[in-house]
């Protein structure tokens, strides 16, 4: 009974940890994607400088 309970806890912890990792990745994606788009726009414009 105790072994089942402990294994259930472990799996619950692993699930929570995966959920948190996904949340962190999504949060970084939400700010990272527009920032990367802005950097790309600037980078394309700056190529004119060395042509």
């Amino acid at each position: 009974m105790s072994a089942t309970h402990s294994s259930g806890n472990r799996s619950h912890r692993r699930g929570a940890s995966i959920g948190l990792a996904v949340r962190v990745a999504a949060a970084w994606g939400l700010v990272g994607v527009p920032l990367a788009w802005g950097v790309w726009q600037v980078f394309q414009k700056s190529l004119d400088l060395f042509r």
Partner: protein
Amino acid sequence: MALLSILDREHSIAGEHYSRWLVPPAALAIHLSIGQVYAFSVFNLPLSHAIGIKDSAPGDWKLSTIGWLFSVAIVFLGVSAALFGRWLEHAGPREAMFVSALCFGGGFEVGALGVATHQFWLVLLGYGVLGGIGLGIGYISPVSTLIKWFPDRPGMATGLAIMGFGGGAMIASPLSTMLMSHFRSPTSTGVAPTFAAMGLLYFLFMMFGVFTVRVPRRDWQPPGWQRSEKSRPLVTTGNVTADRAITTPQFWLLWAVLCLNVTAGIGVLGQASPMIQEMFSGSISANAAAGFVGLLSLANMGGRFVWSSFSDYIGRKGVYATFFLLGAALYAVVPSTGRAGNVVLFVAGYVVIISMYGGGFATIPAYLRDLFGTVQVGAIHGRLLTAWSTAGVLGPVLVNYIREYQIVHGVAKADAYTTTMHIMAALLVVGFICNLLVKPVDDRHLTTEQPAASTAALA
């Protein structure tokens, strides 16, 4: 009111299953939004054609009048950061971010109404005053929270957030252009609906920051991290209140350090496009000059993260000493690369200079934390930002007036920048001396006040 209570500090304390790596994206959401202010100039021409549409017509606002929108916003940034810093320490980051989002997003909406009805005072009230207050509160809102979550790497943490302020313009500039093209019609420049759309977009984006940010429990420490027993020079083990901090010589030395570093950088940023075109007359087009300005924006953003992270290893004093010495040397030498016609060296020199300008902004909160502790570091940072407002006036005025004076006295346009850059180098030498004079804060300034966090969590 009960709904608003979820925003206060007590309701923002992180639970067990919260990662501190969620705080930097929350802070970035705020800073990427308010960083839009650096791209405001894309609205200048369309605003000056609001009635005439294709060209200015009688009754259209002049460019010099429109210029006040940016200046007033920056002044209100400095004033509100200084005034609301202590409130922020009490209210917590979530409430402060929410107020910032309301002011910044709402400022755009009021501004949109002003553009649609062609009432300049309404645009000034919206974007300049209300938006400027949003800028100031938003700028300082995540700083002390990040420092508390990352006691092991405060420079990197604040650099990540403040990097967003440098990067915000890179998103806002193409976004504004796209929206104006979408809304443009034979009878409208599209500025009013663009303002309205951006106000809503930024408000929603900032809400992500509001609902993601958390404050740590008072006893929280990063797993496996131990506060170093070995005392480090300049790093205080106590805390100083904001009211007390401004009576110390350290505060005013740092004020001068920030002001001089920003004065030198802002002078170059404001003149970057005409400067490269005049120094490489005939070989650099207006488009290529815009590319140069873009590269400087990238350097401004990247420098904020790179230099402030580096300060976690060599110390804040060491980083500022590098800014001032390397900066002075580059300001003295780079004009000669222009005279030699070497575009690559010229661009590389200014990229490094502007990376240090950005690095100066991002490293200052960690410097303040080292000297004054964490209790009111957000409020102290807010008061220090008045140095930015001062430099915002001083830098462009110095560059423009010195240059004009020389041209009037017969100096060629391309050569007029050389003296200006040498004066900037001299300013950086003064900054180096101020930084050298910074000593640890005297123990008599320390307070027994505890950080305003999480009493509920301790209960």
